[in-house]
């Protein structure tokens, strides 16, 4: 009820606030409806990624040593750098939301621009990692090959290439879907940047920044789980 002054003016259906659609009683209600819609979408995303996490867990428990050996071939430093990039981008997103709510145009544009740069840097590093995997023939398919590394305690004593291939299939599906979400997010933030440049966002109307931010944070949370599960499972001696 923070915007009660505007709500009173709109009580008789007079559209005093051009940002308020006629089927909403007040800006607060309109903002809550939009934000709730994004939360419901994120709820479906939880189940979407949840299925992949379950399949990962099942195979991780079955092929424990093979998954560890395959995971060791990833570049942990690049993965950690990407994690830091995404965390910094989540900060710039929340600063952008705050800047839009408090009518700080420069901070809004800088925050949205930095978010875009960090998102693109993430995808660039992901591209380098994918390139390395192609060079090493670690991409599942006809040219896949994996050295049979000796694993203490493994039932066959050596890593099974077929089982390692399952790890890499899950690696590419999970990070690939995450990267697809990043690409969509960059599209959303390009649009937000354009709208912010045109001065469309005000303290009364900034819902697109807020729900675009919710989406970005969710993609960040997915990576927060992907990083330890894919990169860090078998780094200890």
């Amino acid at each position: 009820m923070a915007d009660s002054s505007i709500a009173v003016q709109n009580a008789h259906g007079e559209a005093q606030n051009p940002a308020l659609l006629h089927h909403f009683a007040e800006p607060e209600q309109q903002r809550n409806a939009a934000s709730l819609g994004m939360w419901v979408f994120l709820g479906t995303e939880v189940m979407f990624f949840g299925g992949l996490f379950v399949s990962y867990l099942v195979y991780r428990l079955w092929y424990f040593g093979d998954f560890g050996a395959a995971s060791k071939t990833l570049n942990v430093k690049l993965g950690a750098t990407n994690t830091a990039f995404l965390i910094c981008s989540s900060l710039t997103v929340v600063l952008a939301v705050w800047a839009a709510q408090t009518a700080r145009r420069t901070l809004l544009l800088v925050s949205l621009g930095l978010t875009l740069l960090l998102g693109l840097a993430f995808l660039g590093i992901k591209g380098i990692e994918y390139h390395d995997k192609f060079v090493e023939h670690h991409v599942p398919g006809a040219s896949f090959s994996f050295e049979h590394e000796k694993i203490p305690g493994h039932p066959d004593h050596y890593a099974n290439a077929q089982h390692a291939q399952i790890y890499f299939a899950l690696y590419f599906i999970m990070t690939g879907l995450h990267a697809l979400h990043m690409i969509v997010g960059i599209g959303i933030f390009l649009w937000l940047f354009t709208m912010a440049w045109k001065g469309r966002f005000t303290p009364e109307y900034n819902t697109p920044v807020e729900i675009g931010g919710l989406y970005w944070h969710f993609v960040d949370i997915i990576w927060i789980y992907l990083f330890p599960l894919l990169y860090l499972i078998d780094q200890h001696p």
Partner: protein
Amino acid sequence: MSEHSKSSPLKTYFAVWVALLVGTYVTYKAAFLDLAPLNAAVALTIASIKATLVALFFMHIKGTSEKMTKVVVVTSLFFLIILLGLSMSDYVVRAPGAN
């Protein structure tokens, strides 16, 4: 969010950001220690703390005026736990690769 708009939330945002970076550093370092079966537990605990921080403070679950948001979040987590819990309770008692 509207209840908190009077005082500047910037301090909270930067504190959460620092906590997330520290969490990432700790996860990274802990992965290179031999904690026997605890490695995965430590990594997933830190990841869950980080995810909770992002959801509560960056996604504004804490302090939201819309109560339905919390209902959606709790429902999502509830069904995720069913998905993970029921599936894994089945698979952990099977032999590897068995149907």
